């Protein structure tokens, strides 16, 4: 049998488009409208047996994730609106993001409260983001050298005019009124001149 004739005499069963769209949309967690849009050409008649077939799919895992030894940082953040660092007395080195164990000397660190101020060490403005931040661009992403630490933290800086961001600019942490125990609970803004 020649390849191109293979399906010629077979009984064609048309997939029920409406039912298919609803089932698939719910399975992958998007709207039926968007599924229909993405697959509009698949349902305008019988397709060649050998043309590529696409299906909607999703890989999803849910978590109950433990912060382990870093929990105090997130409790301080969520419940008190405070920024903590972790200081190794032996190395006289302060980390933020914190770590329970010093990666330099393998000793234990101590929690310290930080003032939440610092300066921009480097920055970029993101115009084209991931589907996780659709609608939130442009946004400034910066490394901030935090006062009273020996570290930089990756964070967002909010400014009315992103083009005003500069390396060396003084910034301070702002804690959102509603917090969920994630680093997105705070961001930085420019401090006024001379601060």
């Amino acid at each position, binding site marked *: 049998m020649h390849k191109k004739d293979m399906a010629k005499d077979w009984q064609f069963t048309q997939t029920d488009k409406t039912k298919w769209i609803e089932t698939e949309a719910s399975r992958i967690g998007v709207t039926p409208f968007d599924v229909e849009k993405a697959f509009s050409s698949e349902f305008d008649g019988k397709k060649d047996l050998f043309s590529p077939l696409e299906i909607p799919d999703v890989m999803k895992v849910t978590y109950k994730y433990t912060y382990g030894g870093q929990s105090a940082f997130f409790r301080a953040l969520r419940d008190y609106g405070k920024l903590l660092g972790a200081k190794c007395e032996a190395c006289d080195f302060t980390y933020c993001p914190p770590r329970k164990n010093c990666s330099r000397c393998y000793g234990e660190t101590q929690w310290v409260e930080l003032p939440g101020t610092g300066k921009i060490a*480097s920055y970029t403005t993101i115009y084209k983001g991931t589907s996780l931040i659709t609608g939130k661009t442009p946004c400034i992403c910066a490394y901030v050298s935090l006062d009273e630490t020996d570290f930089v933290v990756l964070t967002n800086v909010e400014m009315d005019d992103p083009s005003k961001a500069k390396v060396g600019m003084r910034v301070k942490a702002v804690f959102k009124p509603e917090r969920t125990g994630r680093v997105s609970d705070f961001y930085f803004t420019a401090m006024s001149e001379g601060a």
Partner: protein
Amino acid sequence: MRRVAIVGVGTTPFKPRFIDKTYFELAFDAAKDAFTDAEIKHTDVESTVYGIYNDLFERQVQPDLYVHDYLGMGGKPSMRVNTGGATGGSAIRAGFMEVASGQSDLTMVLGVEKCSDCFDYRMGQSSPEVLKSISYTADMTYEQPTGRTAAASFALAVIAHQKKYGNPTAEQMAKVSVKNHGNAALNPIAQSGKVLTLEDVMNSPMIAYPFRFYDNCLYSEGSSCVILASEEKAKKICKNPIWITGLGASLDYAILGNRENLYTFEASRQAAKRAYKMAGITKPRQELDLAELHDAFTGTEIMAYQDCFLCEEGEGGHLIDQNITERNGSFPVNTSGGLIGCGHAVGATGIMQTIEIYNQLQGRAGRRQLDDPRRGLVQSIGGIACAWTVCIVLAKGGYNA
């Protein structure tokens, strides 16, 4: 340590999407091409190494299981390597170690990547969902929630470099894009066929400041493969093997607070030093004839000039200004078109770069062919702000020629 040669290469074109092929079918095409080139059968291969980056791209955890099966390699020793953008380079390093150590006389190193099956239904396009899949590489606790993209991670370094050294400028970065697109236009496997002007690049939309659209590499799908052989085996089956004479790797701190500075890529410096030491190279600019440097972004190609010791610290911008890295310059960089022009099929990319140097050394680079190059460098980088680097020195002629 035994000497290791490349005795054959194969690759698919790099394209935005192969709607008609799965990742294991792409791998099959590259492997078959390489076996034909090396004049061996798949049953001759003694061990396999697979470079595959992102399980979410492939919609399959542990995709190497199904590549190995599809290639008819059942029973042979195998491992999968994943070091982000440096996956291809790391896979070659793993294959080198298999052969150099005496574990195998003939090893297949194959990189493959899909990505455009990822699809954002709301936006009706792939790229935001591709970026999302990549974003899970960022530290999930402290960094991923900021929305930082791969482009942003390298932009942060380029801005710090600009602050320190006054370059790369927007125009120097645009020149790199024009150069690499120009080279890609002569490369039959390249994804982009565009010939651009400086204005095209400098007027393209901003993606992550200071990178505009044409400063960025392309998302690609594709597969590339090299066949590695021990010296004894290579001399038996190949008239003109290309030798891996230098190999160096480094994984720097991924949390940048632990780094000495934000404006150089220490992983690249250490990997290059190790590769040069092994190859006996003390003046890379004089002793090498060309390089494929990992131009994920134009600014990072310019940073790579200094990090691979092809110029003094902070002087990368001058190399492009003086046309030194153009195809007809004194030290051509990315004659393949690089990731910006040829494309970035992540797991395959370092292998594609290696194949370009191989083809140049063999005199098989078609319209891109340089005048009798003898020794070349591959730099393969990946991870947050170049956490990983693998550098590979390739040479033709006798091992020490």
